[in-house]
């Protein structure tokens, strides 16, 4: 098999207060996969995400991205390869205009002039926000801000897109539009979510993190269709939702 884009081995992390958030996580994600990362509150999902681009440093174990170990000498390159979209767009959009925010990442990578302009234009087009380039981000609606947040990361042309709860706080239409955008992208995706129908719709594979270890890894439809396993990991489907029936009606 090819080299995994994300290769997490026996990853453990204890926060400074001694709390062990991760205790030996093993995860491999291959090129082109879309994987949902599920798990109850406090399972360690966000902690895992922050290791993937070297924001947090492992207490034990290792992470590599397409063969490149995540660590001090190559942090810049790792952060180009792994694009993280944080849960609250207000944390991610800090510049005075949408254009400047999207340009921030590629400019840090050294792009200038026409190359930079082209990157920004393309990223904004991918999320359908090209008409908002000169607006200040804080005057956009929440759904629009989330889309711009995705564009800021796409502009860095990452190999893996990591999203922390991308559908939270979105109205149903924005939620569906974001799904369309994600489906249209040709990148590897790791998506943290509590929105199980969303995981089913977008990600063929699901991984469950529970108490700091990977507790399940397999086809999303099999996991959601297994009530006993679901209950064990504190996962619950919305009332009346039938995963197998839903897949039957999935848009191509």
């Amino acid at each position, binding site marked *: 098999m090819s080299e995994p884009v994300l290769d997490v081995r026996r990853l453990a992390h204890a926060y400074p207060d001694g709390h062990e958030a991760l205790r030996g996580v093993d995860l491999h994600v291959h090129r082109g996969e879309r994987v949902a990362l599920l798990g109850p509150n406090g399972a360690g999902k966000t902690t895992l995400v922050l290791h993937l681009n070297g924001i947090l440093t492992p207490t034990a174990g290792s992470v590599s991205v397409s063969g490149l170990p995540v660590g001090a000498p190559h942090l810049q390159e790792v952060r*180009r390869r792994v694009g*993280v979209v944080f849960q*609250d767009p207000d944390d991610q959009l800090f510049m005075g205009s949408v254009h400047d925010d999207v*340009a921030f990442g590629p*400019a*840090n990578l050294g792009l200038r002039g026409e190359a930079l302009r082209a990157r920004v234009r393309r990223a904004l087009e991918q999320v359908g926000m090209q008409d908002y*380039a*000169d607006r200040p981000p804080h005057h956009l609606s929440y759904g629009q801000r989330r889309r711009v947040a995705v564009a800021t990361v796409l502009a860095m042309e990452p190999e893996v897109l990591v999203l922390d709860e991308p559908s939270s706080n979105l109205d149903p239409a924005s939620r569906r539009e974001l799904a369309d955008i994600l489906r249209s992208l040709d990148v590897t995706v790791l998506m943290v979510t509590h929105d199980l129908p969303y995981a089913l719709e977008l990600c063929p594979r699901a991984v469950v993190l529970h108490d700091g270890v990977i507790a399940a890894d397999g086809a999303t439809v099999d996991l959601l269709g297994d009530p006993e396993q679901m209950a064990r990991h504190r996962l619950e489907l919305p009332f009346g939702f039938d995963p197998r029936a839903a897949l039957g009606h999935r848009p191509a």
Partner: protein
Amino acid sequence: MGAGHGHRLHYHGHSPVHRAPAHLKIATLLAFVLLVVATPHAWVWAFAAYAALLLGVVALSRVPAAYLAKRMVVEVPFVVFAVLVPFVSHGPRTEVLGLSVSEPGLWAAWGLLAKGTIGVLASLTVAATTEPQQLLAGLRRLRLPDQLVQIAGFMLRYLDVVTEELGRMMVAMRSRGCDPRSPRHWPAVGRTLGALFVRSYERGERVHLAMLSRGYDGRMPDLPAPAHREHA
């Protein structure tokens, strides 16, 4: 949110004052305010000249007088203070409207009022005619250290976010039967402000993480100014 797409003090327009380069406006404002402050308060004619010049610029900018007047309320505490000065200072007394007031105090009050009013009006005029982003670019052009400009930029960006957060916290307090205006509840309000501080601090940390995630290395990258990029 406030008028137009700028900040609360900005008044959208296309006058020559609006179009003047931001760094020129800032430098002029600074020089003008220093000059006004340094003028001895006995030179009444000089203050008349400053006021006339300033009103000329305001007229040129076509920002409505009422718009600026409303925002002049920030000066009120100084006015109150200025009015008190003649009553509480020492020195030879004179009679004004049948009241005995201190003469040096009267001059001090006049100086405070004249300088304060001219300074506030001049600053408001610059704020009303300059977009926040231009203001930052202007500060950078004036060679203000990049770190300071970055801080100012973040302040502008997050002012609304933090104000809204405070608004939400106040609503939450009211909904639980606590009136932030009543002194009995001030301790609770104080704790809320403390919580707001902690939240803002934590947001700052999260923003910093988001910046690191996009390759930030302590220096803001040079981005093309809006004028130099084509519109899609």
